[in-house]
């Protein structure tokens, strides 16, 4: 995976010195990954966009408190994840009876029925992940949807990498029990 957060030390220094161009560069490098993480968490493109915007609003406000112990994107992901959790704790929004929005899938173009089937399974998997205990859910989403290395997650969770791998294993076990055979065809 290309590292959207490379050269972050240089960027952070520039941003903290008031360089807006550096802040914009940081946005350009990271926002797609933040958006993708949030989309996978919430499953709604408009909402993911709003939450991405909110994530950066919080990031600017919290920038002074970023101590650099974790990578910039790890820090951003943590903010995005918290923003998502805050959102789902808000009052329920509209439950639309209209047809769900379709979206452009970035990878190759498989047949339409396959896309639909995959989307359905992905949604069920997303729902199952959302039902995991807090620590397992964060670990799974940070690793697979946020793209954070195990070592980074271990750092922000302040446990060992072995502990993170154990969490992942437990999460897989729970997910397997939640999902039926159809997912594993």
């Amino acid at each position, binding site marked *: 995976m290309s590292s959207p957060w490379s050269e972050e030390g240089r960027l952070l220094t520039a*941003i903290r*010195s*008031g*360089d*807006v*161009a550096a*802040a*914009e560069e940081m*946005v*350009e490098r990271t*926002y*797609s990954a933040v*958006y*993708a993480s949030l*989309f*996978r968490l919430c499953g709604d*493109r*408009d909402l993911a*966009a*709003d939450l*991405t*915007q909110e994530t*950066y*609003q919080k990031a*600017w*406000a919290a920038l002074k408190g970023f101590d650099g112990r974790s990578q910039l994107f790890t820090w951003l992901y943590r903010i995005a994840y918290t923003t998502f959790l805050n959102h789902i*704790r*808000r*009052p*329920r*929004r*509209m*439950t*639309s*009876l*209209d047809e769900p929005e379709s*979206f*452009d*899938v*970035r*990878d190759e173009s498989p047949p339409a029925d396959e896309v639909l089937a*995959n*989307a359905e*399974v*992905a949604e069920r*998997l997303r729902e199952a*992940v959302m039902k995991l205990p807090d620590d397992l859910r964060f670990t*799974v989403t940070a690793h*697979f*949807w946020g793209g954070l290395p195990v070592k980074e997650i271990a750092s922000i969770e302040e446990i060992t990498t072995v502990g993170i791998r154990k969490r992942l294993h437990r999460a*897989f*076990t729970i*997910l*397997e029990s939640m*999902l039926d055979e159809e*997912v*594993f065809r």
Partner: protein
Amino acid sequence: MSRNRKAEIQRRLSLNAVPKPPDGLAERIKNDIPSHLEADRRRFASSLGVNMRVAASILLLVTSLVVTIHLLAPEEEMSMKTAPPAAAAGQEAHPPLVAMPRTATSAPVVGTANIQTVSDAATTNAIARVEPAREVRRDEEATASTMQFQSGGLAGRAEEAPAESRIAEAPAPAAVGTIIPAPEPGVATLDASAAPPPAASQPTRAARTSLVREAVAADLALGPQTTLFGISIDPAAFERLKTTIERGSRPAASSVNVEALVNYFAGAPKRVRRDVQLEAEGSPAPVGGNGRRGLVRFTIDTRSRDVAANATIPPVATDARVDVDFNSHAVAKFERIGDGASHSSEATLLANTSVTGLYDVELKSGVKPQTRVATIRLSYKSVADGKTKSAFVVVRGSDFARKWSEASRRHRLATLGAVWGQSLQGSAAGTDVAVRAEELATQAPDDAKARELAAAASASAGTR
């Protein structure tokens, strides 16, 4: 756990089927970069300049309105009223929120020579159906308009749910898929007649499916709406009260527009990306609750649009209809908080608009977290594509099993604003409101509305 299944789960989790970020998202984010980062923001100078001019124009407009109101009114107290003297008298007689005086069976029967009864009978499956009868509080013209609208547009629904049964069992949410028919064009025109006069130079819009609807929408696309679904959203109501309180006077009860206060403090989201969105929430009462008393809120927000100060606000939806349905197995009593007769339909919803309705409810004993307490349904016709869209939100018992402080910030501000308004109308809970508001302001020092409410509640607690 088999190795294959573990691998399959990992594979599924790693799939890269995510949509591209929407166009303009990066710019939205960049535009939020705060000014204290500013070293060289020349690229944004022009957009900032436009925003500042827009903000200044809005400020000037609001100030002019406030000054005009003060100049035109003969007395200070009169200037604070939305309703005329006759209406004010009725409002004073209205019992405060904390009293919960009306019951579902206390409503007058259909056919009584009472304007409110007419509207109750006519708007069966909507807000007015769940609202106990009360005296007329709006001016005669507005009431007549509402009556015509309701009797003309919805009289046929009276048979479906008699007005006597104030609390009706709702159909299961799954049955909501049926689109509620939009009002007839004539009805929409009638409703539009109560709206402000059309602007001299109204810009034309893209072709739409209904000429009548287009005409109505265009006529109404003037400026911010001050009532929606009969609910006052007058943004100046709080400012008027604040001015009086800051002078050391206690506002007259009749001058307190509680539903406008609810809407002022409920506010609007930073940005709404859907044409129309609905949210609903319940909670225990903020002060003076007996364990079964609660509040149910619904809020409708319309799409955010950048509109210059002197430009018309475009409509985003027509033929909007909201329907609040309480579960008689869960709710013993309910009453909409507000001063006027609400109605279920609105011919046009403009962009940049938010409206909040609040209900005081008393739950029956034994309501479980999963029990449905209320269903709020919304349907509207999108101006963008002409399609009718529907949505609903179910409020369940779990909302009332938590603490009020665990409700969303918007809900807490709206409900506290309501109770504060009612405390000004005569309830003795003013001190408690000030304490609650202070807690809210302390939790979020950057929340201007929480600070305003805390300051006003504290000051009003000390007024005579």
